[in-house]
């Protein structure tokens, strides 16, 4: 088990080094004249030359990469071309908001997928199953940003029962900074009003993000449950006289959970991507909104920071997913250890 974790971490670090090269290529090589993009066409040639010196743009590419990576490893992503602030400061400010949003989506996905998937599996080929299937088609057909707009419309404009924009209402002071998660900070500092308000703000955007992966994983779970219920070991356990509830809860669910959790981990990639659009719609002050603004303004330093951090997050989530799966399904140990 420890060997598996160690191997997996080492592979991850190797891939992340590759990822950093890719990001470097995107942020330094593809754009052409970085100084031109950073300072605009109206800047003087001497100002551009000064920036080139500062960013070591006149050195050969490998040297540039090593210097860039060295700075990144020390947490220095350079200054934003737009705000002129250090990118690292911006990241520190915005990242917790995105993590909070993504974490809440994860809660929705896990709870929703398992309850809907088990319902559909239990009542397969009935109207319950049919309803969940239709829901899953809705989740596939409408991208998260469309779902977000619809939720915004229904709850924000028509019923006005839910706060819709930002992390917290303008009149409410954010809780004292501990973790950067507003809900958690609110609870920790006893500021329950702020926590409650922040929680309500969290619901709609995280649900918009969660819906697609949620229904997708529910479908996967449903089909694994149905597949596995026809396996010989289920027939044997049934014949042994185990009670039906134990059969479903234990003997059927555990072997079926593996594929579902794998898909959840993979869907997480789409979720992080869609967060870029959903944060924009809900005006959520997170890293993704920061990232998309950076992209639209060609703020190269900020883009590379955001992409790298998202890459690391994605790796960590899949690392955790791998460990969970290996715990659930011992067969996977052999397959995954050799990877």
């Amino acid at each position, binding site marked *: 088990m420890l060997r598996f974790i160690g191997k997996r971490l080492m592979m991850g670090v190797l891939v992340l080094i590759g990822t950093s090269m890719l990001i470097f290529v995107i942020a330094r090589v593809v754009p052409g004249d970085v100084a031109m993009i950073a300072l605009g066409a109206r800047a003087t040639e001497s100002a551009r030359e000064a920036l080139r010196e500062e960013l070591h743009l006149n050195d050969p590419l490998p040297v540039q990469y090593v210097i860039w990576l060295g700075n990144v490893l020390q947490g220095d992503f350079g200054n934003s071309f737009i705000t002129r602030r250090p990118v690292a400061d911006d990241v520190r400010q915005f990242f917790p908001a995105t993590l909070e949003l993504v974490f809440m989506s994860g809660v929705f996905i896990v709870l929703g997928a398992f309850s809907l998937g088990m319902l559909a599996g239990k009542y397969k080929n009935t109207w319950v199953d049919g309803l969940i299937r239709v829901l899953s088609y809705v989740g596939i057909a409408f991208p998260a940003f469309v779902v977000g707009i619809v939720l915004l419309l229904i709850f924000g404009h028509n019923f006005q029962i839910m706060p819709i924009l930002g992390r917290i209402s303008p009149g409410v002071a954010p809780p004292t900074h501990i973790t950067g998660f507003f809900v958690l900070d609110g609870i920790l500092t006893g500021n329950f009003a702020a926590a409650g308000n922040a929680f309500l703000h969290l619901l709609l955007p995280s649900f918009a993000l969660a819906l697609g992966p949620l229904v997708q994983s529910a479908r996967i779970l449903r089909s694994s449950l149905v597949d596995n219920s026809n396996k010989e070991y289920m027939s044997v356990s049934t014949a*042994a006289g185990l009670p039906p509830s134990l059969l479903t809860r234990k003997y059927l669910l555990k072997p079926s959970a593996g594929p579902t959790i794998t898909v959840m981990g993979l869907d997480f990639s789409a979720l992080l991507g869609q967060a870029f659009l959903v944060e924009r719609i809900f005006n959520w002050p997170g890293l993704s909104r920061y990232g998309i603004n950076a992209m639209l303004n060609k703020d190269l330093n900020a883009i590379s920071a955001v992409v790298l951090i998202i890459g690391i997050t994605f790796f960590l989530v899949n690392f955790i997913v791998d460990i969970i799966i290996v715990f*659930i399904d011992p067969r996977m140990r052999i397959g995954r250890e050799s990877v």
Partner: protein
Amino acid sequence: MEQQTKAMLSIEDLMIWYKTYRGYAKVVDGISLEVFPGEKVGLVGESGCGKTTTMKAIMQTLPADIIHVPQGEIWFEGQNVLTMTKEQLLKMRRTGVSMISQSPLSALNPVFTVGEQLMDIIKYSGQYSKANKKEMREVALEAISSVMLPDPERIMNSHPHQLSGGMRQRICIAAALVTPKHLLIADEPCSALDVTIQDQIHRMLRVLVEEKQRALVMITHSLGVARELVDRIFIMYGGTIVESCYISDLFSNPSHPYTVGLLECVPRLTGGGLSTGIYGYVPDYINPPKGCRFCPRCSKAMDICREQKPSPVEIAPGHHVACFLYGDRAQEKEAQNKTDYKAHGEGG
């Protein structure tokens, strides 16, 4: 002899159909059989002739959504399995019948340890107090050693994929025997085992049946195994029972052409070259032959065989054959040979 005792298991004219894309596959086509307490019964036939399907129907573990039972009854200890309530079914599975699966590689749940699976079976058999974990563990360990597996402690903590096929098969046997049941269905329990272990398992099964008036249904390919272990035998072909008799009659007086062919397929240690055997394959179950299902492969087929289904005829006490070669002529034969058969009947 059996007329006095009540059958433990009796299947009456059972049909089982599977839904397929081309229509219903009529896999079990009206079979009847009886098993009495203290009896060891063999069920022999080629792969895919409906043996396992019939036995799974007794346990009610066939996939309900693709199964159709157009007719028939399955009686176990005075109750019809097909109309049992959930509680009755649970009780039957816990104390009445146990089944050893044919496919050892897929019969154990891959994500739980052997011990956990055995313990659950013991816990829910209702025969041990749930609080007494230690006692239940002892029972599980004992079951593992009873199938000649070394180091039961280690095996308890192993996942199925860490064990060999033969070990898993023995675990399946242990799981079926770990709590006492009245009827034991063994579906080719020894296919992956060495001859020596096979022999020991057979001996164990025999003791289990004989000591407490239990019963055994042994599904097998091998007539040799049947000869060694069972009292009475049912030969199945294409979802029908073509011949049933005491095991000694099978070898002294095989009557159905399929049985004759089957016996000719058994290689003999005494030599004598290869036999002619049986041509062809098991029938297409979706569009089965209209008359006798064996007739496309039968060397003695007559016109009537292609038109009508033969019903079983008793050619001697306890010896039934479903074949038009017998029928009316059987009575004459019976009159001639009455004394011989009587001897066999008593012997079984």
